[in-house]
């Protein structure tokens, strides 16, 4: 019996060593999870920032973070040619240098005379676009700006407080009229919905105030399906839901979100899989962004599981959706 115990302890140690070694190997081997860098460009009209994600290949993953941060800014000047998007950086401005100090990226920007943004709107979009983009580089959390005048003297911002490093803004693409704010009370609850551009069908996150007197889940479903109010300044956007496709019911409990579409969704899956994918992307992203715990999605249509020929996933297992918006090729 004593021998048995020694043998067991030895075996236990060997097993422990084996699992530890396996864990270490997993840690040092290249990760299979893709790395995404997200760029933020201006939608037509200039009032909204559109995220466009790019998957970084393993080769690129070995680039230094400085190089990545610099590349992000350089790419910010040149939006993808196949999309109707504009750079948030004004013409006449260029990047001289990017350096990293801990989690802060420092950017030196030069400009020719007249190359600075005019007005609070473009200045805010430029800074937000750069900060949101650069902080999507792993490890970068803040951006310090150095603007250099044509005569090589520092330029002070005309509106924004930029003396300290800037963290990603909590409030961007946020939309509420005075009337909506008033009806929402002093501490409005914001929901993030994803609508799309009419031309390129790009998903755009927009924060809107929870309509009064409605449950949060139902309110978000209504916003997703109905799209922006037609005569609002967001009229350039539209719902990702084609005519007739609707959400019947949303049930949310902790990380679990049950979404029941109407039966028209099956038709969409059959006839326009890309359109159906956009609907799912917008719905998943809206719930993930609006509710802290929402993570596991279960999809039904007309109260029934989706037919296997249209939906290859196990209805009993949750769909875990990484939030990657408007993905473009490397």
């Amino acid at each position: 019996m004593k021998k048995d115990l020694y043998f067991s302890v030895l075996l236990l140690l060997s097993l422990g060593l084996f699992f530890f070694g396996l864990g270490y190997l997993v840690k040092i081997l290249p990760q299979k999870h893709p790395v995404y860098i997200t760029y933020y460009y201006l939608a037509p009209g200039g009032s909204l920032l559109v995220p466009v994600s790019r998957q970084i290949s393993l080769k690129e993953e070995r680039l230094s973070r400085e190089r990545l941060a610099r590349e992000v800014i350089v790419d910010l000047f040149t939006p993808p040619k196949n999309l109707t998007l504009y750079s948030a950086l004004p013409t006449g401005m260029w990047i001289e240098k990017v350096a990293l100090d801990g989690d802060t990226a420092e950017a030196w920007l030069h400009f020719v005379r007249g190359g600075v943004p005019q007005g609070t709107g473009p200045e805010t979009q430029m800074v937000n676009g750069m900060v949101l983009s650069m902080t999507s580089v792993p490890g970068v959390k803040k951006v310090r700006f150095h603007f250099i005048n044509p005569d090589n003297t520092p330029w002070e911002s005309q509106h924004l407080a930029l003396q300290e490093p800037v963290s990603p803004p909590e409030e961007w693409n946020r939309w509420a009229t005075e009337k909506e704010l008033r009806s929402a009370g002093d501490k409005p609850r914001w929901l993030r919905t994803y609508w799309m551009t009419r031309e390129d069908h790009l998903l755009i996150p927009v924060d809107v105030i929870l309509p009064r007197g409605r449950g949060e889940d139902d309110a978000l479903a209504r916003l997703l399906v109905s799209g922006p109010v037609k005569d609002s300044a967001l009229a350039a956007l539209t719902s990702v839901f084609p005519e007739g496709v609707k959400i019947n019911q949303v049930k949310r409990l902790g990380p679990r979100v049950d979404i029941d579409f109407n039966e028209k969704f099956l038709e969409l899956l059959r006839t326009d899989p890309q359109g159906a994918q956009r609907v799912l992307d917008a719905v998943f992203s809206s719930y993930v962004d609006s509710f802290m715990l929402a993570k596991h999605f279960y999809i039904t249509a007309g109260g029934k599981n989706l037919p296997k020929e249209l939906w290859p996933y196990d209805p009993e297992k949750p769909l875990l959706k990484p939030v990657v918006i408007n993905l473009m090729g490397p």
Partner: protein
Amino acid sequence: MRFFGSLLLAFSLLLLPAVAAFAETSNLKSVRYDSDHETVLILLDKKTEFRFYKYSDPARVVLDLKETRPPAPSYSQEVQSPSVKKIRYSLYMENPSVTRVVLEVKDTKDWRVTAEESSAGYLLKLTRAPLTETIENPSPPKIEPPSGPVRDAKGFIFQKITSGAVKSMMIGRGQIRLNLRWAFSPEVRLSSDRQELSFWIPDGVEQNLPRTIEVGDAVFQYMSLEESETPEGERAIKVKVKLQQPSAFQKEVDSIEEELRILVLPRTKILKVAVVTSENHPQIQIDSQVPLTAYKLFKLSDPHRLIIDIPEAEYAAEKELDGVDGTSFVRLRGAQFSRDPMTTRVVIDLKEKTKYEDALSPDGKKLLITLKEINVKENPRVVVIDPGHGGVDPGALSPSGIEEKDITLAIARQLKKLLEEKKYVVLMTRNEDVNLTLPPRIELANQNDADVMISIHCNSFPGSGDMLGMETYYYNGESFGLARMVHSALVKEMKREDRGVRKNSFVVIKYTAMPSVLVETEYLSNVDAEKFLTQPENQKRYAEAMAEGIEAYFSSLELFKESNEQQSHRPL
């Protein structure tokens, strides 16, 4: 065979901790903040393993509770404290068997965790106080002996509660006041005969219960405290309050004072409304059958009126009385405003904006309202107007070359004139086309102790000439009200596209010490907006709307101030 036996034993040893951990799932019962000791109290039903971390940017203290279930999937509570900003907890996303409690703190220095086991469960304390008890040597919580009832000079009876959601209670003058340890709002029940109120204090542990406290005033007979259980089966102290006559009640939460007030409203009749004159000031006297415990006074404009609403009151007096010549008091009207809930409304019609003072007679049966004319020179408000840009900095340019700095100055000059006519003290950051950086603009407002600051700008999106509309920006919560009122007036008057009230960290609104807003009047890059902005009559309309918004903001402050005064006058 021996090998397989050993393998089985080894696997059993490996599995043992997992089985043990599964069996020991604990439940998070409550998370509370004790402001007296700057301590967060985390109560679990059984002992569990925990990990304590500190993070910066933003500064936060994190406690991971292993194998623990929270009472709700997530929870978040803002805290008004010198050291803690917010308390939140939720299931940890990466490992749902862990509940993560996060304290957003001002500074992570000196934060510690201590643990103790007691009959109530396993208590973890996150505190900045020096470590007095170690995790290895837990001791049960001390229960202070309760103090007996004490009546103060104002007629309140004071009852200290040593544990649970309530620190102390005060009863008297038609009110039950609960001083709270943490945010809580009890469900107050009124008996069918409307003569008994009851509610529970959760988690209260008190010695020498049951206890009865004799009150014996015009409203209350007595209050009793007894150990009980809520309908949900939670341990609690049940509070019963016996009333002198059938009454209604109102609940109010004062989050600044951390106090919950239950106002008892005995049913009464308004017997008489009369006008008397005292020291040349008209005075309105309202007689009630039983002592008044609550009433509400507020002003309305256009035309100016002073309204008095008395809850649970039946109106049995004259319906109309004439005003007093040579004063601002024009007429008085009284009526039954509603029967469910029973409310009497008395309206005093005024010629102009008037100050008032209200007071209750010592027996609480007479309410006296004295009307006084306002002397605006007593305490003039200071408004700082900041016309954006100037000098070599033209700001935005229109398609035809009009500069933002000229439009902002033109509107600012009009606004100055209008506000001075309304007897405000107005300071301009610039009144000429001069260079001015941002810091002197902020200094001017801060050094002159201004009441509000308004910065005037024009927006521009040179690449997108079709963008139109007005925006009003604020930075801190204090400025939100001003932003809403100014923006609302602008939207109403100018009828331009409403692009909303927004938050942003612009220098002139971030570093000013008073409520301050930045108004974007229109997009100068738009050809139509350029025409609109350059017309003097439109510039005047912008100024009028801004003046109206500023005035509405100051009026709302007056109303708020009066409403606070009202609360201090309200009880008997």
